[in-house]
């Protein structure tokens, strides 16, 4: 009887206590719906500590603002709307003035030239509404002609501190620069900053070049050239522009090369006797290893970031679809099952997504899917979209878009993995086959 009474008392206590505790506690709310819109950011011109740094101070701020707004995640508040002026890098920030114009982030900086004539840039990032600095201020030193890289590095820091993701502004893209009419188009390898600036040509237009691919460290490029009449794979050193053809067997065609994550191996397609299979080649020794033996066409391979798996395109089921297999070959697992034809898969640097080209109902799309094939989402749609490549942070995809007709031209475009912020990458002429390199040191 006593046990029963104790149990009853305990139960009553447990029943009553939560209610009283809830009454005495704070008001609790759950926020599940928000908005997705660009974050308003103010980037006033940097302070020029020396008169010679005046132009650099203004131009660096403009490039930072362009980098941030180009992501689609930020919206710059124009200088005309600024109430407060940054007269000194070390003076306190009047947060109320920046709050009044709804600036949620503020980037301030100063530029000077040191005794050796090098550019010195200092910057700070503020959370305006919290009234505090985000992280600590930093200083960058570089050559004068490298002022754009300094600006990109500052923008990378701002982007990283606010979003929590790595930046991608201080990176380069290797691509095929195209010129001339469509039936006589000249193609050259070229390299540029991610935003289209600082274009440098790596080859001349004497031979058709295709599908350049950056090495993981960004110092080398693999590409396919028809210099000999047959497609062959070449390895080019970016700094010296020196190149050499990788060894291959007579009567075969090698193409679609891609580096392994450690940069020591080349994964490529080889057509021999009318059949196309996947191979790897040790760059140092030139020794090749066959990975597939199927009678179908296997091509467009890409390593996973850890180098343990390969995603590729195969028509073994009748139409081109995407498959994943181990890095040393073996059983392949199909991951694409939607209607249409899939191709050119590329594994995200984060390892969570695979970008691809899809042809369906007369249109081309760039899309992404999980590595198990789920959550497929098409990001673009046009007459011809193809050849996706990932930004170093795995957040943005660049690809080729070609317009229809005799006057049609290929251009480079980028899009966020959410499908937002589709925009053209500025290039002087036609451009195709982009390969996004890593962040520079």
């Amino acid at each position: 009887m006593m046990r029963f009474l104790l149990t009853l008392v305990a139960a009553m206590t447990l029943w009553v206590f939560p209610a009283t505790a809830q009454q005495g506690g704070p008001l609790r709310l759950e926020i599940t719906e928000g908005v997705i819109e660009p974050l308003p950011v103010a980037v006033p011109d940097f302070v020029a500590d020396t008169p010679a740094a005046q132009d650099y101070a203004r131009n660096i701020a403009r490039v930072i603002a362009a980098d941030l707004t180009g992501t689609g995640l930020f919206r710059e508040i124009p200088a005309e709307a600024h109430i407060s002026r940054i007269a000194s890098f070390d003076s306190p920030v009047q947060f109320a003035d920046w709050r009044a114009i709804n600036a949620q982030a503020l980037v301030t900086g100063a530029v000077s030239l040191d005794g050796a004539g090098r550019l010195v840039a200092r910057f700070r990032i503020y959370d305006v509404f919290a009234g505090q600095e985000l992280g600590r201020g930093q200083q960058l030193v570089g050559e004068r002609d490298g002022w754009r890289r300094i600006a990109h590095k500052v923008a990378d820091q701002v982007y990283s501190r606010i979003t929590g993701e790595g930046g991608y502004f201080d990176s380069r893209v290797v691509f095929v620069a195209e010129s001339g009419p469509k039936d006589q188009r000249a193609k050259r390898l070229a390299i540029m900053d991610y935003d289209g600036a600082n274009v440098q040509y790596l080859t001349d237009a004497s031979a058709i070049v295709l599908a350049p691919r950056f090495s993981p460290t960004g110092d080398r490029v693999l590409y396919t050239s028809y210099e000999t009449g047959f497609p062959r794979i070449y390895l080019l050193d970016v700094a010296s522009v020196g190149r050499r053809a990788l060894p291959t067997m007579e009567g075969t065609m090698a193409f679609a090369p891609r580096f392994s994550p450690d940069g020591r191996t080349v994964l490529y397609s080889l057509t021999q006797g009318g059949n196309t299979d996947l191979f790897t080649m040790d760059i140092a020794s030139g020794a090749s290893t066959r990975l597939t033996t199927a009678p179908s066409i296997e091509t467009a391979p890409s390593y996973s970031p850890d180098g343990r798996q390969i995603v590729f395109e195969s028509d073994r089921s009748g139409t081109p679809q995407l498959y994943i297999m181990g890095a040393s070959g073996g059983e392949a697992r199909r991951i694409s099952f939607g209607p249409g034809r899939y191709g050119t898969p590329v594994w995200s640097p984060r390892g969570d997504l695979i970008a691809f080209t899809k042809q369906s109902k007369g249109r081309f799309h760039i899309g992404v899917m999980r590595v198990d094939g789920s959550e497929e989402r098409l990001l673009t749609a046009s007459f011809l979209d193809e050849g996706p490549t990932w930004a170093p942070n795995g957040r943005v995809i660049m690809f080729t878009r070609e317009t229809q007709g005799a006057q049609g031209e290929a251009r480079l475009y980028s899009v966020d993995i959410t499908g937002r912020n589709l925009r053209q990458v500025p290039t002087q002429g036609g451009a195709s086959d982009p390969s996004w390199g890593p962040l520079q040191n």
Partner: protein
Amino acid sequence: MNTGQIISGAGHLAVIGWALFGGAFRTDPPPLEVVEATAISAEDYAALLAAQGAPEAVANVNTPEPPAPGEAAPVLGSEADSPPILSQPEASTTPPPDPVPSPPEPVPSPAEVSDTAPEVSPPSEDTAVLVPQVSPRPKPRPAPRVAPEPVAPSEPDMRVDDVARPEIAPDAGAVIEETPQEETAPEEATTEIVTEAEEPRDPAPAASLRPRARPARPEPARTETTAAQPGLQAPPATDSAAVSDALAAALGQGAPTPERPAGPPLTAGEKDALRVAVQRCWNVGSLSSEALATTVVVSVRMFETGKPDIASISMLNHSGGSAAAAQQAFEAARRAIIRCGADGFDLPPEKFEQWRDIEMTFNPERMRIK
């Protein structure tokens, strides 16, 4: 047998006897009408008729004179009628032949009536022979801003603000001076991200679904079983919350404890208003994928003016992501509280004790799938 019974029996007998023999059940025939008549013979009847109808005879009759011989025949004064014009009838167009009547559809012979009721099967949802092209679900228009509620684009020259405000122009004739106010409207927004591939190509549906057959008559309601049936839509959360609050208020569960005297608890509407005010400024567009998978619980102490004490905003805990991602998520939440609380949240002052301390859980799960 007592006297009463005797009297009663005698009375009954008297009444029955009167009814039987007094003519109570006898009806008298209606009185007949008597008419006097006289019998006559057939000869007399014929003579009587002849005397009444015979006409009188006429003696003198005027006869016309015959024409004299040799007189010319009289000229007919009337002109001859012109021959009638025969007009040909207009050729009428041959009317189109009547459509061949379609043979009547055979009327199904009535089924034999049986005592057992036929089984009524519910109509199948996908029984159309020609599967129509399903009209796509209307996609929201692409817009740079994604918000819980769609917002139509405003006028080009209208200032964008978090809330819509009507324009207040100074009125020269008004006695009461009004503070001029610029008309504002929220920024154009859609409810989800619309990629280029998802943009609707043609808003008009190619075909519409065949109307569904009338559903089978519902079974008699059995409350004890329908409540447990899966697939039934739950009532809106707001309704249930309102009902819960009403029940709580009725049962006295919302009464403050003696240790914490305060006004009545916030109603569901007041809580929702606060929630909406915060989420209007909760911008997750610049968060990383990992931060978008991180839920943070943020504590804030409020002033009586409805403004948040910025220094008191802190992250109590987080789940679903790394510490760095939680920090990004917390900063976005903090910006939301400060930004939309800058002018003070619309909270009832008499219930200040109820909302002085607030814990907000920012769960971005729904925002990830947009």
